[in-house]
C-alpha cells in the first residue's frame, strides 16, 4: 500500500492524473499568453510605425535562441523516451541537457537585453518595447520555472524514482517552446 490517497490511483478519465493536470495547466497558460499576444497583435496591426522599432531587434539572436529551445525540446522528448523504457539515469542526463538549454537561453537573453538597454531601448521607450520586454520576460519566467522543476524531476529520475514525471515536465517544456515559436516571428521577424 502506498501513502498516497486512494484518489490518486484511480483514472476514470482514461489518463494518469498527473498528465491530466499538466494538460489543464497548459490550457490555463494558453489563455495567459493568448491574452497578452492578442493585445500585442491588435496594437501592432494598428501601429504601422512599430515595424521600424521592431527593426532594432536582433533576428540572429532570436533565431539562435529558437534553435536552443527546439534542441532542448528534443532532449526533453528523448528523456521521456528513456524514462518510458525505464532508464532513469539516462533520462536524468537528458533532462540536465535540457536545463543546459534553458540556461543558455536565459543567458543569451540577458546579454541581448543588456545590449538593447545600452542602446536606449528600454521598457518605457515605446509601447512596442513595453510589449517586447513584457512578453519575452513572461516567457523567460516560464523558462526559469520550468528549468527549476526539471532539476527536481531529474534528481529523482537519476535514482529511478517518479519516472512518470519526466513526461509531465516534458509536456510543459514543449508548451514553453511552443510559445517561443510564436513569439519569435512576432517580435523578431515581422518588421
Amino acid at each position, binding site marked *: 500500500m502506498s501513502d498516497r*490517497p486512494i*484518489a490518486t490511483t484511480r483514472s476514470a478519465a482514461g489518463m494518469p492524473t498527473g498528465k491530466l*493536470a499538466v494538460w489543464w495547466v497548459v490550457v490555463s497558460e494558453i489563455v495567459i*499568453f493568448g491574452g*497578452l499576444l492578442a493585445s500585442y497583435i491588435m*496594437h501592432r496591426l494598428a501601429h504601422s510605425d512599430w515595424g521600424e522599432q521592431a527593426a532594432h531587434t536582433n533576428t540572429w539572436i532570436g533565431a539562435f535562441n529558437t534553435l536552443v529551445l527546439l534542441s532542448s525540446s528534443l532532449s526533453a522528448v528523448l528523456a521521456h523516451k528513456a524514462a518510458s523504457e525505464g532508464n532513469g539515469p539516462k533520462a536524468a542526463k537528458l533532462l540536465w541537457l535540457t536545463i543546459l538549454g534553458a540556461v543558455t537561453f536565459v543567458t543569451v537573453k540577458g546579454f541581448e537585453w543588456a545590449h538593447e538597454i545600452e542602446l536606449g531601448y528600454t521598457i518605457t521607450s515605446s*509601447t512596442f518595447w513595453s510589449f517586447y520586454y*513584457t512578453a519575452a520576460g513572461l516567457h523567460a519566467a516560464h523558462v526559469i520555472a520550468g528549468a527549476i522543476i526539471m532539476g527536481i524531476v531529474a534528481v529523482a529520475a537519476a535514482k529511478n524514482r517518479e519516472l512518470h514525471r519526466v513526461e509531465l515536465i516534458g509536456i510543459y517544456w514543449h508548451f514553453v517552446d511552443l510559445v517561443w515559436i510564436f513569439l519569435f516571428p512576432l517580435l523578431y521577424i515581422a518588421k
Partner: protein
Amino acid sequence: MAESIPATPELAHDEHGHHEQSFASKYLFSTDHKMIAKQYLFTGIAMALIGGFFAYAFRMQLAFPGMDIPFFGVVSPGEYNSLITNHGTIMIFWVAMPIILAAFGNLVIPLMIGCDDMVFPKINRLSYQIFLLSALVLISSFFVEGGGFGGSWVAYPPLSSEPQYNLTPLGSSLWIGAVGLEFVAFLLGGINFITTTMNSRAPGMKMNDIPIVVWMIVIASVLFMASVGPLLAGAIMLLFDQNLGTAFYDPTRGGDPVLWQHLFWFFGHPEVYVVFLPPLGMVADIITTFARKKLFAYRTVLYTVFGTGVLSFTVWAHHQFISGIDPRMANIFTVTTLLISIPIAELMFVYIATLYGGRISLTTPMLWALSFIAEFLIGGVTGIFLGASGADVYFHDTYFVLAHFHYTFFPIAIIGFYMGVTYWFPKMFGKMMSDFWGKVHFWGTIIPFNMIFIPLFVLGTAGQHRRIYDYSHFPELMTPGMQDMRVFATMSLLVMLAFQLVFLINFVNGMIRGPKAEKNPWKANSLEWTTESPPPHGNWPPSEMPTVYRGPYEYSVPGREKDYWPQNEPT
C-alpha cells in the same frame, strides 16, 4: 493502509496522517481536504466581517454625510473610495470565491464522488497558503501610506494606473499583487477540483451519477481557468504602468484604456458564473432532499449548464456599452446577453418543476435554497434592462446597476454561504445547529436585504449616480424623498448586520454544544451521508470505500419502503 506496517522511517513519516498529530500539522498544515475546506471557510467569514464593516461605514456616510460614524470616525473622500473599492474586492474575491468555490468545493467533491482526498493534497494545501498570503497582502494595503486602493474594484485606467487620480500609490500595487496571488491560488485549487472529479470517482459512478453541485463546481473551475489568463496578463501590464512607467493603457503615449476594460470583463463576466454555478448546484441537491423528489431533467440541467458556460464567454462587453466601444459590437453583445437569460430561466423552471408535487419540509437550508431562487430571479430580470444597450445608456453607472448587482451577488455569496453551511454543518462539524435560530436568522436577513436594495433600484431610476461621496453637492439628487430612501436603506443594513450576530452565535454554539449529528440527518442519497459525521481521515475506512449503483436523486421511488435510496446501496 492502516494495517500495513511501516517498513522504513520514510514511510512511517508519510503515514503521519494516521497518528496523533500536533496542533500545527492538524490545523495549520493539514493536507486533508476537509480541514482545508474549514480553513477557507473561516478565512472567508473573517474577510466577510471586514467587507461588511466597510459597507456599514460607507452606507452611514451616504445616509448622514460628514457624520462621525461610531467605530469608524469621519469618512474622508479618499477613504470613501478605498472603502467602496475594497468592499467590492473583498466580497467577490475573498468571500464569494473562497467560501462558495473553495470551501464547499473542497468539502463536497471528495465526499460526494466517494474518494478519500483530493488527488493533489499538497497542492491543495499550497493553494490555501497562497490564498491566505493574498488576504494578508490585501489587509496590509489598508495600512500603507495613502491607504487601500481607491480606484474602484474594476480598476479602470487611468484611475487605477495614475496615483494622482486614485491617491493610493502603494495601495494600488498591493491590490494588484493580492488579486494576482488569489488567482494563482484558485488556479491551483481549480486544477485539483477538475482532475479529482474527472479521474477519481468511486467505482460505478458514471457521468450521470455525479451530484449536480459537483458538476457545477467543476464547470465553474473550468470557466475560471479559461477566463482568468488574459486578466493575469493584463494585471502584469497594469502593474508595469503603475511602477515602471510603461503606457499600455495610456492613450497619450500609444496605449489604450479600453483594452483593460476588455481584459477585465473577459474574465469578469465568466467570473459571475464561476461563483453563480456552485450555489445553483447546491440548490439542486437541497431542494431534492427536502422535497423528497427526483431532480426534474438531470441531463437537461447538465446540457443547459454547458451552454451557459460557453455563452458566458460571449457577453462580457455589455459592461462597456458607454465606454466608447464600437456600436456594432454593442449590438452583438446585446443579443448574446439576452440569449444567456434563456438557459438560466430554464434552470429556474427545472427547479420549480422539481418542487412541484414534492413533500416539502421547510428546514433552514430549504428556506435558503428557495430564497436563492426568488432573489436571484429579481437580479436576473433587472439584468434584462442593463443587457439591452439602448436602455443601458440611461441606467449605466446608476444605483440601478448597483442594486441589480447585489440582487445577483447577495444570493450567490451570502445566501449560497448560509445554504451550504446549514446543509453540510452536520457533516463538517459532527454537530447540529439550532433550526429555530436558523429560521430567525433567515427572516432577519432576507427581509432587510430586500429593504436595502429595493429603495436603491428606485433611486437608480431617479438618476442617482454611483461612486458619489456626498450627495449634498447634487441638489437634484438631494430631494427629501431621495435622502429618506438612503437613510431607510442604511437603517435596513444595520438591522441585517445585527441579525448576522444570531448566525454567528448559532454557528459557534452549534459547533461546541450542538447535539451530536448522525450519519445522515437529512436522509439524503449522496455519498457524503454514508460516512461518519464528521468523516474520519480518509473519509471511509479503506475496506469500505463506496461503490456507486445509481444517481443521487432517487427519492420516493415507488415500491421501496424508505423514501430515499443511497447511491452506494446495492440493488
